[in-house]
């Protein structure tokens, strides 16, 4: 009985109540949010693996035991999510978008509960809480009408998901008579050999929910909308933290090593169910990448990018090998870090430039240098460039895939990562590089709080890139707790895959040396003088002669337009259309059924009589 666990849930709830009272005063709201996050982090320091807490809820006739239980996985997830939330809320002190702090705190409470809960009632309660709180948070982006539609769409997806989980939970309950997650999973793994199809059915009820929440391939359609049109200060949390709940859920059920005993294995010793899941991940990765390449709204672009990164994660953990799980969790962490950073810098840029259209920005790097460098480090990590984080995990993912002899999946993942480089640079160029437009002459760098946050994030990305051991050690513990053999990892970042080893600090050192040499060579060679951006080679033509200004003449944003038609097949994928079609179809049926109520007393009387007669006949037959 460790009562500090319950505080992890209670504190945010209390904080959110307080914040809800003062929600009228934005700064106060944000301040309370930040303080609550910080306090929760502080409480978290007193939490250790193996602690548990449970309290009775007199419900369903019996006394339900709602139990919180700290496993290696949960404490890892708790640390990364709460820590990032603290950073984000600290930044949001100076932010002006319409994010409501108390909703964020509700999500935090749900977050802690989800990660710790060991009974499906609490899990479902927290899941639903998180669902509606996030939906309401999505409301009130910059474009209100669009964010309204996005919220509705997200709502429907998430509600459908949680109802399918509802079904799964109670089916398990009917079978085992208990709500405890661990007990149920033990039960499933005990019968998976005998009734594989049963287990597959029940587990897929859960996986639908997790896939929807993580935005995996067939259910990815809500992601771009919700990310692009949610309040700018909320998007980082949505992308960085909330997309991990689905991953966490999948990891909960993975230890069944589900199909392994129940199902024959496809290629490379991967059970074919997992094999299918690997391919779902790969499809998500490629689809997200290709769609991201051609976006113009930068938030949408990064929404698709999150999609593809989660595809990586799913593909990796679906392998369910030590390398795969390690790589998956590691990449989930890296994605949390760099995508959160990217969205925070976007928040800074958008709050200054007032637009999220790539075609309207450009050349901001001289105006916001620190944000520029943070963004640079961010995309370097996202592109998996050493020595920043994001390299190690991608590298491990390739190792894992190759170890299972899945070359084609690996090739597609590699394509996805090259494409990632394309769209990342597109965003980078169109926001910060290129020609500065005179509309942004008075744009300023973010204020001190923002600078501090950005420096911190830069440091974090570089640190965990150079010293991946500090993350890989806890991940090793997680892997061990799942009953697999953890990778030999040392805290100094000596990572060994099955196929080859890298020693990340070595890379950093060699980079340091070579950069020193580069700078020396640069400064010993002849002098250079700085010229303005307008002074460009324009084939001898001075644009002003033609009534052209540099903004118009030297403006370039529509990258990759030539290859657009290569990817035409991808744009024809219309999952979205399928969902919307279902919705419209339901609406049509509804309006048809509405006609039953003709609003005419005789008809109603007639219905009643007919119903009666039918029953009488039924009684007669019986």
């Amino acid at each position, binding site marked *: 009985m460790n009562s500090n666990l319950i505080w992890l849930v209670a504190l945010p709830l209390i904080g959110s109540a307080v914040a809800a009272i003062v929600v009228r005063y934005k700064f106060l709201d944000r301040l309370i949010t930040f303080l609550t996050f910080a306090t929760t982090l502080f409480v978290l320091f007193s939490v250790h693996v193996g602690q548990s807490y449970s309290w009775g809820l007199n419900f369903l006739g019996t006394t339900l035991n709602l139990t919180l239980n700290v496993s290696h996985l949960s404490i890892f997830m708790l640390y990364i999510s709460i820590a990032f939330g603290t950073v984000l809320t600290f930044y949001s002190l100076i932010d002006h978008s319409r994010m409501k702090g108390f909703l964020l705190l509700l999500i935090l409470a749900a977050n802690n509960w989800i990660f710790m809960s060991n009974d499906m009632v609490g899990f479902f309660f927290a899941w639903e809480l998180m669902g509606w709180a996030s939906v309401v948070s999505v409301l009130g982006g910059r474009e209100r009408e669009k964010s309204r539609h996005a919220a509705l769409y997200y709502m429907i997806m998430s509600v459908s998901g949680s109802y399918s989980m509802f079904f799964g939970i109670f089916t398990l309950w009917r079978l085992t008579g208990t709500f405890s997650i661990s007990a149920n999973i033990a039960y499933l793994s005990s019968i998976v050999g005998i009734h594989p199809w049963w287990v597959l059915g029940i587990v897929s009820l859960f996986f639908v929910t997790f896939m929807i929440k993580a935005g995996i391939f067939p259910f990815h359609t809500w992601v771009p909308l919700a990310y692009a049109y949610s309040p700018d200060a909320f998007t980082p949390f949505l992308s960085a933290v909330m997309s991990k709940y689905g991953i966490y859920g999948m990891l909960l059920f993975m230890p069944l090593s589900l199909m392994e005993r129940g199902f024959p294995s496809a290629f490379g010793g991967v059970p074919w169910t997992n094999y299918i899941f690997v391919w779902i991940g790969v499809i998500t990765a490629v689809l997200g990448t290709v769609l991201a390449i051609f976006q113009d709204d930068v938030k949408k672009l990064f929404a698709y990018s999150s999609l593809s990164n989660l595809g990586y994660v799913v593909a990796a953990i679906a392998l369910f090998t030590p390398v795969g799980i390690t790589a998956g969790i590691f990449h989930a962490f890296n994605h949390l870090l760099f995508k959160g950073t990217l969205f925070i810098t976007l928040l800074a840029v958008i709050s200054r430039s007032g637009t999220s259209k790539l075609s309207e920005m450009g050349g901001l790097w001289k105006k916001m240098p620190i944000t520029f460098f943070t963004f640079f480090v961010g995309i370097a990590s996202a592109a998996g460039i*050493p020595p920043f984080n994001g390299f190690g995990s991608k590298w491990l993912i390739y190792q894992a895939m190759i170890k299972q002899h899945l070359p084609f999946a690996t*090739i597609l993942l590699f394509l996805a990562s090259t494409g990632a480089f394309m769209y990342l640079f597109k965003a980078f*160029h169109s926001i910060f590089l290129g020609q500065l437009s005179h509309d942004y002459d008075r744009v300023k760098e973010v204020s001190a709080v923002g600078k501090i946050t950005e420096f911190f994030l830069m440091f974090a990305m570089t640190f965990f890139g150079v010293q991946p051991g500090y993350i890989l050690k806890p991940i090793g513990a997680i892997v061990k707790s799942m009953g697999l053999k953890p990778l030999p990892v040392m805290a100094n970042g000596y990572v060994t895959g099955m196929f080859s080893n890298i020693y990340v600090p070595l890379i950093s050192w*060699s980079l340091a040396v070579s*950069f020193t040499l580069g700078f020396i060579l640069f400064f010993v060679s*002849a002098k250079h003088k700085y010229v303005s951006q307008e002074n460009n080679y324009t084939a001898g033509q001075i644009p002003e002669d033609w009534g052209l200004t540099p903004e118009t003449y030297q403006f370039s944003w529509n990258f990759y337009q030539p290859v657009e038609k290569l990817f035409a097949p991808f744009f024809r994928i219309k999952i979205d259309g399928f969902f919307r079609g279902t919705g419209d179809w339901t609406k049509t049926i509804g309006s048809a059924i509405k006609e039953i109520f003709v609003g005419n007393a005789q008809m109603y009387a007639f219905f009643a009589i007919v119903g009666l007669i039918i029953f009488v006949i039924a009684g007669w037959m019986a």
Partner: protein
Amino acid sequence: MTILLKLIQGIGVGALSIAVGLLFIGIGRKITARIQRRYGPPPIQNFFDIFKLLSKRSISHGFAFDLGLIAGFSALLAAVVFLPMGQINIFPHNSSLIMIIYLMTMAYLGMAMGVSSSGNPNATIGIARALTMMMGYEVPFAAVIFSVYIFSRTGSLANIVAAQSGGFLNWNLVRLPFGFVAAEIALQGMLGEKPFDMTIAPSEIASGPMVEMGGKYLGFGMLQHSIGLFIETGIMVDLFLGGASNIWIFIAKQFVLYFAALMINAIMPRFRIEEGVSFMWKFPLLLGVVQALIVVL
């Protein structure tokens, strides 16, 4: 002490790669000239050029411009030390191919950042083409890489070389012929030789990324190109030509590959960018996939 040793070795390797790369380019110019019935410049012409460029005044568009160019040069310098070349193999346990490739990606990123911070539309077009082309050739190349991985059960270049030891017949060139052809075509794209030189199209987009680069910036560009040439051919040698027993044979093998690329370069016109990508995704990718299939099954 060993750190100092490694440091010196690393700098030596960097200098070597620069020298060899520049020499290759010079010889390449000579050969091209001879193919075109010209006399051609002396093979060491590129050393003159580099010296001149580094000693020539130049203009810059700001700090990002400088940093980008430096990064482009330095990242490749950092990558080359991990490349096992003959008996010279500084970090024998850290020669993961994917790591080298990602380090080179950093060079491209730096280069792209530098030139496009100038805001010159030609540069931007060139960068866009370069990135698109990169996606074009890296897919078949990835197919080849991973089939080699699976074939020789290792991902580190040193071990791949070791796996090919013992005679010509053990070379992956013989073992994985389709993969070799695919990789060769991909190499053509990597080196930016014709028909894949749409990135640097002097007559259309004024030499693309280099449009704003003069003096030492162009010099850094050339250095980057020479190191890149060295690394890419070196990777090919390690992957398919069984590495080498000593550095000179290694360089000789590299030159063979570069020579083939030159021959194609000298007689080819230029693709349009989408033609280039779709070509890369038709023939070489097909070969690579076939190779992977053969390896897996």
